[in-house]
């Protein structure tokens, strides 16, 4: 800047530019402020009217729009605004012009906007708003460098007073913005693809590490949008890749998340609540909440499993509990023992009864905080089981794909189950009519939230998500 600036400044002053002419300068500066403010207000209201607009596409649209307005070229030529026809565009003379034009277009118009978006996603609203004051500071420093002079005392004082005022004002506005805004729209996570090669590479990396003390060679597969508190692949869903080398075994572990385990390589066994499950490639089984489990590999090749759980949701709610090497390894026996013995302090003499006409029930607090445990059961789905019937349910006509759900029917929760089934039908598995009228992209987002069933791994499949 200094080198180029010095030479060009001489040229510029020789060219008859008035360095100071406030009668023209202040109206121009006011005009610039007006343009920016108008842009800001119009942009906010335009985006508010388009809640589903992709920010990247919107920025590109504005940039393209600015480019399109350059079609007003003949008007400029008519008024003789351009020097290019006179000076030409030879590199010797036009070098700085071309370099700076390209530089600003790429670095300021595109790079600046992207960097600002990047920053505002990582900074608290109040701090992000304050960061814009860096622009006038940087502009003043650059301007003084180009003009080769130091600021006067009055200028420094003026700038400081101004900036203090601006910073306090931004603080007040950004604090109020939180209250004034309506709830933010949902921001669904963008689809990400984890390729088989990436998974294979990670399996290899994990298998080559020295075994950790608890035996669990395991990695989380985390979406870039996930919060650091609750790392997951989809909101509320944790996906981990666990690897065991031949002959290895994990130490027992339990947590209050419910898992679905899916073997993608090798063979082995899992011990959940004392039950031993032998599994092979593509077998699926679940691990109920807070049941001690361990896994072993008695096969000859490296074993790899994908585990889907709601650990991210529990972590997000700050209620995730886990226990390494739980003492009650013999199974759910200890838990069940407690159920049998009746502690009088834990039983309300009044029980649960109806209150009011609408069917509301009053439940004793003792029952609320210590409900009878539901049945915990490990379900195993081996390869080939129900294959024919599943294939039957999946072929539902052109452009229509059905996703069957494996679930556990709790005999003592009939009412709940009906309710859940309804919920699933309405929210996760829209009716066939709805599916037909919906572009495939809408469906895949839901389907990706689910553990993929074994049948999907029997070949390859093309999925379209958001045009990808």
């Amino acid at each position, binding site marked *: 800047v200094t080198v180029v600036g010095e030479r060009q400044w001489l040229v510029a002053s020789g060219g008859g530019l008035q360095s100071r002419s406030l009668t023209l300068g202040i109206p121009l*500066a006011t005009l610039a402020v007006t343009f920016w403010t108008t842009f800001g207000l119009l942009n906010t209201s335009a985006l508010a009217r388009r809640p589903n607009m992709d920010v990247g596409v919107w920025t590109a649209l504005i940039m393209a*729009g600015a480019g399109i307005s350059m079609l007003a070229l003949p008007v400029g030529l008519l008024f003789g605004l351009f020097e290019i026809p006179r000076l030409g565009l030879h590199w010797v003379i036009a070098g700085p*012009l071309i370099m700076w034009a*390209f530089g600003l277009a790429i670095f300021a118009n595109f790079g600046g906007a992207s960097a600002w978006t990047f*920053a505002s996603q990582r900074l608290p609203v109040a701090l992000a708003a304050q960061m814009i004051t860096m622009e006038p500071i*940087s502009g003043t420093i650059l301007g003084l460098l180009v003009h080769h002079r130091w600021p006067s005392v009055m200028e420094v004082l003026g*700038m400081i007073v101004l900036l203090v*005022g601006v910073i306090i004002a931004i603080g*007040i506005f950004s604090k109020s913005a939180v209250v004034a805004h309506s709830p933010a729209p949902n921001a669904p996570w963008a689809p990400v693809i984890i390729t088989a090669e990436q998974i294979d590479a990670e399996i290899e990396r994990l298998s080559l590490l020295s075994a950790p003390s608890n035996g669990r060679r395991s990695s989380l597969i985390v979406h870039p949008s996930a919060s650091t508190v609750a790392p997951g692949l989809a909101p509320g869903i944790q996906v981990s890749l666990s690897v065991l080398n031949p002959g290895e075994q994990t130490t027992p572990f339990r947590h209050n998340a419910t898992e679905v385990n899916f073997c993608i390589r090798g063979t082995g066994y899992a011990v959940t609540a004392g039950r031993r499950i032998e599994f092979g490639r593509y077998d699926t089984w679940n691990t109920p909440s807070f049941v001690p489990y361990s896994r072993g590999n008695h096969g000859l090749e490296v074993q790899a499993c994908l585990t889907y759980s709601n650990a991210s949701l529990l972590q997000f709610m700050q209620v995730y509990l886990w226990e390494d090497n739980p003492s009650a390894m013999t199974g759910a026996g200890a838990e069940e023992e407690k159920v049998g013995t009746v502690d009088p302090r834990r039983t309300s003499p009044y029980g649960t009864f109806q209150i009011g006409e609408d069917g509301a029930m009053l439940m004793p607090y003792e029952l609320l905080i210590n409900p009878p445990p539901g049945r915990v059961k490990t379900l195993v789905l081996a390869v080939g089981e129900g294959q024919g019937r599943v294939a039957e349910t999946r072929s539902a006509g052109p452009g229509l794909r059905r996703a069957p759900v494996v679930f556990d029917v709790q005999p003592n929760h009939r009412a709940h189950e009906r309710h859940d089934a309804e919920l699933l039908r309405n929210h996760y598995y829209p009716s066939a009519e709805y599916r037909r009228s919906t572009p495939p992209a809408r469906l895949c987002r839901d389907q990706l939230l689910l553990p993929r069933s074994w049948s999907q791994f029997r070949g390859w499949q093309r999925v379209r998500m958001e045009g990808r």
Partner: protein
Amino acid sequence: LAVPRQLGTTEQHDFSSEDHGFVYSQRMTRSMFFGVTAAALAAFSWSLSFIVPFVIGDYSLFDFTLLEFIVSGILGVGLLWRNAPTVRKLKLNDWLAGCSLGLIGYVAYFLAVMGAAVYAGPVIAPAFLGLVPVVLGVAGNLRKRTVSWSSLALPLGLAAV
């Protein structure tokens, strides 16, 4: 613009280690640091427009604007091309809004800023532009009152001085 993180950056799923909190807090501050750096870079890149008039020789600001926005227009079209499925769904209304915003917020603003840098000098021009967030806030408050005017008296007074 979202690039999925590589699988290799996932962390060891080791519940027994006690440094979970430490690792996460370190990542938080790192993300803040990147955020502040990116914001500073953006502010710096935008402030370059204040010195453009002094580095382009005998060419006029209009020459510069023409070149700059032809390049950024091509960039914009390229980005739209990449998002073709979304772009196909845009309505005429969206295109008109985008174009007028580009004209006001990029072309017109840019010409005015460079003119101000030439005629108002290196201190007064940026100082005026520094007022933009305040003007935006005041304009928003005029439309839909969210902040009491008395609480703004001190900062607005300071800025006015």
